[in-house]
């Protein structure tokens, strides 16, 4: 879990959640596994056909802007994506990733250095990204929300919290 090694899918700036998971499916597709079938449908039709477990999306600024739809994070998580590295993220998408325990890392230097299609390694423990061009550091998650990530996402985290409340 702390080491993620995968092939890079590189995209540009301001990729919105409508092209990551089209709005027309938001009330007709409810099974998370099925959501993966539509991942990036309006951005890159090759993605669902060729994505492999632990592959990594590398993007420019504001990845995941637009609609709050959580399916945009879920469809990527269910595609077995290992992580997303971007210059910056749309804030609700960022929170949705954290809540799904899908690593969303901010590192502009790594984004500039990483080539499309290369295989890179992320070490979540040391906070480093290693690609052909070198090794880059990314800022750790705020400690106050690390618990959500470590619990495996917001669902198991809240589950534990609810159990603790009901035991009181």
């Amino acid at each position, binding site marked *: 879990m702390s080491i993620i090694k995968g092939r890079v899918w590189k995209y540009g700036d301001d990729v919105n959640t409508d092209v990551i998971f089209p709005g027309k499916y*938001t*009330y*007709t597709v409810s099974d998370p596994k099925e959501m993966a079938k539509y991942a990036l449908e309006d951005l890159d039709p090759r993605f669902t056909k060729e994505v492999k477990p632990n592959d990594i999306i590398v993007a420019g600024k504001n990845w995941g802007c*637009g609609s709050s739809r959580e399916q945009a994070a879920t469809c990527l998580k269910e595609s077995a994506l290992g992580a997303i590295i971007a210059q910056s993220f749309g804030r609700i998408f960022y*929170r949705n990733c954290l809540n799904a325990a899908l690593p969303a890392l901010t590192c502009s230097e790594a984004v500039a250095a990483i080539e499309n299609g290369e295989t890179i390694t992320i070490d979540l423990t040391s906070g480093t990204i290693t690609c052909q061009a070198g090794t880059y550091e990314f800022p750790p998650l*705020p400690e106050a929300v690390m618990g959500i990530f470590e619990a495996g996402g917001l669902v198991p*985290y809240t589950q534990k919290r*609810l159990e603790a409340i009901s035991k009181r």
Partner: protein
Amino acid sequence: MNHTFAEKILADKAGLSETVPGQIVEITPDVALSHDNTAAIQGIFKRMGGVKVFNPQMHAIILDHATPAPTTKHAENHRVIREFVRDQKIERFYDVGRGVCHQVVVEEGLSLPGEVVLGSDSHTTHAGVMGAFGAGIGRSEMASIWAVGKLWLRVPESVKIIIHGTLPPGVTSKDLVLYVIGDLGADAGLYMSVEWHGEAIEALTVSQRAVLTNVAAEMGAKNSYIPPDQKTVAYLEHRAQRSYTPIYPDPDAHYARIVEYDASTIEPMVACPHTVDNVKPLSDLRGLPVDQAFLGTCTNARLDDLAAAAEVMKGRHVAAGTRMVVIPASSEIYRDALQAGYIETFINAGAMVESPGCGPCMGNHMGILAVGEVAISSANRNFQGRMGTRESEIYLASPSVVAASAVAGSITHPRYLKEDRQ
């Protein structure tokens, strides 16, 4: 002292004397807003082990995204939500036809100065028009609020946008917000609280101000805020469901950025495909043929928007080869527009008027585009595929421009309508 609106309201809600940007706080919202995604949230709530919601009084549930139901799947989704509302004894439930959620929470006096509205919808920034802290969150986060009544928020940095002067005639708050986003970019407000100040903002009606806090989501804003004034108080007089205490930023608050504009220099603007910050002066696009004109959504389908469009369309007709869909933002607006004669004007002009809701805005129904088609819309998003197919294009503009373009069959402003009509 020296704190912004966001810093002050989050300190207030977290029970702290002050907060600073970057700090994580845990708060209980005053309103937990959800819409057609309530059924999906309920599924997550159950997986979390939730049985009874934390506080049924906190909820505002409005069905708007695909209403009335276009397919059996959508209908089933609504059915599950009605059952949930009944089981959990949620009183503030607004069934299909009441309107778009962001408009409804304002009309129903639920978005109040000094309060926090968290919604599982990205345009919850809209609530800031009343001086509330409105922020969009994810479905799991909403489920977590239902379960434990709390959510973590990062105290945002703040941007202060000051608009001086007066908007010229024929230029609206939609043109203003598109101009600002075109200038600053789609990520200029990312993770930030965007405050609107200045005499041009004070001069706007509450309805026109709502366009600014609504579209602020398109610059990545966490929330957007307009200082409540006499107009806000007057609007809330017979609507507010609780007493409220406004919160204002300190005069010496520290902002990450302050930007200033002169309203008198702004001209009619259009956001071009496929991003909201791809903004050009309307004069550059005049004559571009449109297949569909859409006047609707939480952004620009209030009574004054319909009035502006009806004024343009009175005694005129939608151009041959172009169609127009009108969807009032709420049932209250629909009724008032009917009484004012605007609906009759639209029908006489050959437009379709549909029941309140989001309509085709995110590609669900009531005006989906065909491959190769072009739409001009009063909405807030023009992303590729947003209205159904990625092989279509959406231009965003003010209601009067949408109406004039429907009549001309091509993008135009009412001021050019005489020359641009075919």
